[in-house]
């Protein structure tokens, strides 16, 4: 019996200590900070206030939340738009090809994401490869503004986060029973109604899984907004980063973070309602 306890102790202690010290404690601390005041130079005054929470509902910040959500939603939508047909078309291939293709989707993500973002600068800028090619082919006269705007950010986010959509969507699409689709086809259903009546309902939790894994990082990846957005558009990630590193207002930054956590938990609840499992979120 004693040995049994020792084994239990060894297994559980590290993970419990970890969960408390590196997850619970930091979050409780920023919750605490979000109710503090800041002095002008980055110091924290331990005096209870709700003002940080009022501040984030100021029109200035609400606008940033809306813009950031719009950018993240557009990226999520684009990811869905690519992943669905991609997965459905791959469904016809043999299992071996399918597995290979999914592995190939992952390979680019083993290289540094900043370097890949830099690759997009080379492609998208005014004198970049895409513009030069279009001008040389006489398709356009003047270079298009493909980056240093919201479009650049959306392209960057979609690119960086696409595999997080392709993986859950394709695995859901591959799981659909072929006989179901054939039965519908025999009954005279066209591709559109098969998609609407069978594929969508069968894959909705996979799509929502992917959407969570795309949308949530997309409101926080400040480096993509910096590099491809030209520093013009602030997304929530930049806002939090600025509060911690430039505006020296940690309490406000903490309040925004707490707000984000609440939004995230709300989205996860919806996901669970749709029949999604929490364990599937981390599985790549």
């Amino acid at each position, binding site marked *: 019996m004693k040995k049994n306890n*020792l084994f239990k102790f060894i297994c559980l202690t*590290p993970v419990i200590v970890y969960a408390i010290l590196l997850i619970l404690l930091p979050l409780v601390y920023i919750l605490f900070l979000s109710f503090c005041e800041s002095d002008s130079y980055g110091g924290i005054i331990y005096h209870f206030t709700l003002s940080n929470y009022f501040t984030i509902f100021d029109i200035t910040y609400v606008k940033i939340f809306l813009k950031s959500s719009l950018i993240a939603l557009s990226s999520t939508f684009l990811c869905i738009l690519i992943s669905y047909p991609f997965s459905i078309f791959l469904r016809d291939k043999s299992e071996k090809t399918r597995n290979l293709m999914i592995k*190939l989707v992952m390979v680019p993500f*083993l290289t540094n994401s900043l370097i890949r973002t830099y*690759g997009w600068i*080379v*492609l998208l800028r005014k004198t970049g490869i895409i513009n030069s090619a279009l001008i040389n082919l006489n398709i356009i006269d003047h270079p298009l503004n493909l980056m240093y705007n919201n479009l650049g950010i959306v392209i960057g986010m979609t690119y960086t986060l696409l595999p997080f959509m392709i993986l859950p969507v394709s695995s859901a699409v591959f799981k659909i029973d072929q006989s179901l689709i054939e039965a519908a086809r025999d009954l005279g259903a066209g591709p559109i109604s098969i998609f609407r009546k069978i594929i969508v309902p069968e894959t909705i939790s996979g799509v929502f899984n992917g959407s969570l894994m795309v949308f949530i990082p997309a409101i926080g990846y400040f480096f993509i907004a910096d*590099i491809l957005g030209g520093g013009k558009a602030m997304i929530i990630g930049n806002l939090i980063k600025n509060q911690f590193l430039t505006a020296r207002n*940690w309490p406000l930054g903490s309040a925004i973070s707490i707000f984000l956590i609440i939004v995230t938990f709300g989205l996860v609840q919806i996901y669970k309602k749709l029949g999604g499992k929490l364990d599937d979120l981390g599985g790549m």
Partner: protein
Amino acid sequence: MKNKVFKNIFIAFVFLFLYLPIIILVLYSFNSSKMNIIFEHFTLDWYKNLFDNRELLMAFFNTMLIAITSTVISTVVGVIGAVGLKKYNFPFKNLINNLLYIPIVIPEIVLGISLLSIYTLMKLELGLFTIILSHIAFSIPFVVVSVRSTLNDRLKTYEEAAHDLGASNFKTFFKITLPQIKPGAVSGAILAFTLSLDDVVISYFTAGPGSNTLPLKIYSIIKTGITPDVNALTTLMLLVTIIVLTTTAFIQGRKIMEAAK
């Protein structure tokens, strides 16, 4: 027939989208121009220069050290933790289970600033140690989830059988449990390693002097224009990963073939 062509073209376009920046990166590592703007002519100089760029090599070294250390620690803690959490009941088990999902779902930046805040509160010196700690913080849950997917009821029966035959907990763990959950542990470890290797956001907040990582180094020079020796380094890293991946796939494939005989 037409339909099929269209489908294949679409798939090809998705792969073009995914690989275009990588192709650019590899191409420019052989470009004689320093500016990454126009392609002049072929050269291997950047691969030679790479070994003189001390700061870049140091950053690479730090990145590997952080990734290996944090992967080993989070894999060990994650594996035994997942087993323990499945097997035993204890007060607040639900709380711990739910806490483990938090690093997976919340935005990285929130985890980054909350870790920064707590390090500041505890007066921990920012540096390699805090980065490793932070990488452990976001890696463990991925390992736990990955291992948990391999902990099924059949395994429980095996464990009980081993127990009945008089095997100790430790013996059961090493002889029965570990071999069964190995695939989950390996994929969790690979995931932890890649996440660590590429992390920008969390390292950005928790790095200190002399602890520049490769992603941070690249972030600081990206706007000035990356010099092709950085391209060369990432090309080499990519090459190594591809070789590792294909050989493991090959070995696995052979094992399956042999088993089939």
